[in-house]
């Protein structure tokens, strides 16, 4: 505790060097990409960063629209996935018998590349937003269910004994122990679920859509507009990274007790 303040300058310096090196690697990759795009690789396959940056600025209004649509579909799908995933997870986790009956189906379902139902959902819900949301809602819910069930199974039984000894009933055990103890698993499941929601929406947009980053990438590829394709990829990469980092920070803030325990 007391050494934390003293260690900070050294830590900062080490972190400074770390960031410097990361910057160096990043610039090196960009430089290599630029060289490769200009001189070595067929421009149909690879656009240099300078060209991509130029296109990104030129088509910023379009890009913003596609990003907004994508984000809206991902968030809606994810919200639905989180709702049923969390509910189903806790219902299954709290009912051992039901869980034991359903478990093999869930495991099998989880192993199947569910993303393959995207065409079916387009058939059912049409080319618009609804099929994207439906794909994300189904695909992203599964890891949430699985994680919550695992979290409940891993609750330390001596904690439950301790609160029972102090007079807790079933509902109190759930609220005071099961829920907080399973929270790290739930949050990890949500982070995974968000990534899957993004994948689901992009895949569905690529298959058939009017708009969205997935549509943009597929359309650019289909019409040989390679720089546009890279703009789409850069936007998708940024979206995924930002979301993951944001959720990770939220997770850490809520779960300080969990992450600092192991130290």
């Amino acid at each position: 505790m007391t050494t934390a303040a003293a260690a900070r300058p050294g830590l900062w310096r080490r972190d400074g060097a770390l960031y410097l090196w990361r910057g160096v690697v990043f610039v090196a990759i960009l430089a290599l990409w630029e060289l490769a795009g200009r001189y070595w690789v067929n421009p149909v396959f690879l656009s240099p960063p300078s060209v991509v940056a130029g296109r990104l600025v030129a088509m910023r209004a379009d890009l913003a629209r596609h990003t907004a649509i994508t984000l809206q579909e991902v968030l809606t799908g994810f919200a639905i996935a989180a709702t049923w995933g969390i509910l189903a997870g806790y219902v299954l986790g709290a009912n051992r018998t039901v869980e034991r009956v359903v478990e093999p189906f869930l495991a099998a379902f989880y192993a199947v590349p569910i993303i393959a139902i995207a065409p079916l959902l387009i058939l059912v819900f049409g080319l618009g937003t609804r099929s994207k949301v439906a794909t994300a809602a189904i695909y992203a819910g599964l890891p949430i269910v699985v994680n919550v069930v695992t979290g409940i199974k891993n609750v330390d039984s001596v904690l439950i004994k301790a609160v029972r000894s102090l007079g807790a009933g079933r509902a109190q055990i759930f609220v005071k122990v099961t829920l907080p103890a399973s929270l790290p698993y739930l949050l990890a499941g949500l982070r995974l679920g968000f990534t899957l929601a993004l994948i689901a929406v992009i895949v569905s947009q690529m298959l058939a859509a009017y708009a969205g980053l997935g549509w943009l990438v597929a359309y650019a590829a289909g019409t040989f507009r390679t720089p546009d394709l890279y703009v789409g990829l850069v936007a998708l990469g940024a979206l995924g990274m930002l979301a993951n980092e944001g959720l990770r920070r939220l997770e850490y803030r809520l779960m300080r007790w969990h992450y600092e325990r192991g130290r």
Partner: protein
Amino acid sequence: MSLIAVEGLTKVFPGATEVVALDGVSLTVDEGEFVSLIGPSGCGKSTLLHILDGLETATAGRALVAGRPVDGPGPDRGMVFQEYALLPWRTVQANVELGLELRRVPAAERRRIAADRLALVGLQGFEGRYPHELSGGMRQRVSIARALTLQPRILLMDEPFANLDAQTRLLLEDELLAIWQRTGQTVLFVTHDLAEAIAMADRVVIFTARPGRIKDVVQVRLPRPRDVVRVRTTPEFARLYDHVWTQLRDEVLKSREVA
């Protein structure tokens, strides 16, 4: 009338290989008594505590507390676990308040009681810490403070100091005796440490290897208040130690054969 009366208590854990943890155990404990339970691993001493606390039910026989059969946990009994069993996401304060919170004691009252119990175990100033920031000894103090919040008449301790290093253990043994002498509670103390069992208790109950039966009950007539370290150097302690070990040795050997 004895505060605790156990009559012909049997506990069988069903399953592919049925385990008879307790087999017809009878025991009475008077109010204010400090009783150690000792025996080889798996002899059912912990199961006896769990049944007395109401966490488990007996297969046969009766467990009475203050003349009434045990029917689930109650505020008249407090339990301390070997693994501390603190909620890692709660501060020391919130952990100690847990039992009061579950019984909907108002916040101000909870704080007052928790502060009092934390002072009793010497943990003032650590209210805001989390369990992972504390040493094992401090965690077990928190756990003891938590068990004391509801002012139980009976303290059930399941190898509370088994995970601690030898020095911390001696300190906590002394402190527990001091607390016990002040509060006048009845303590049932499970341990597998012979010296600890004798140094702390008024009586030592020796269990057989599985299935757990009571082999012998040894009276410890060492003067109180005791210093758990110094008492070990007395001739009477040496005699008791030898006596208890002689009986326990056979049981430990028997349980080894099974294991």
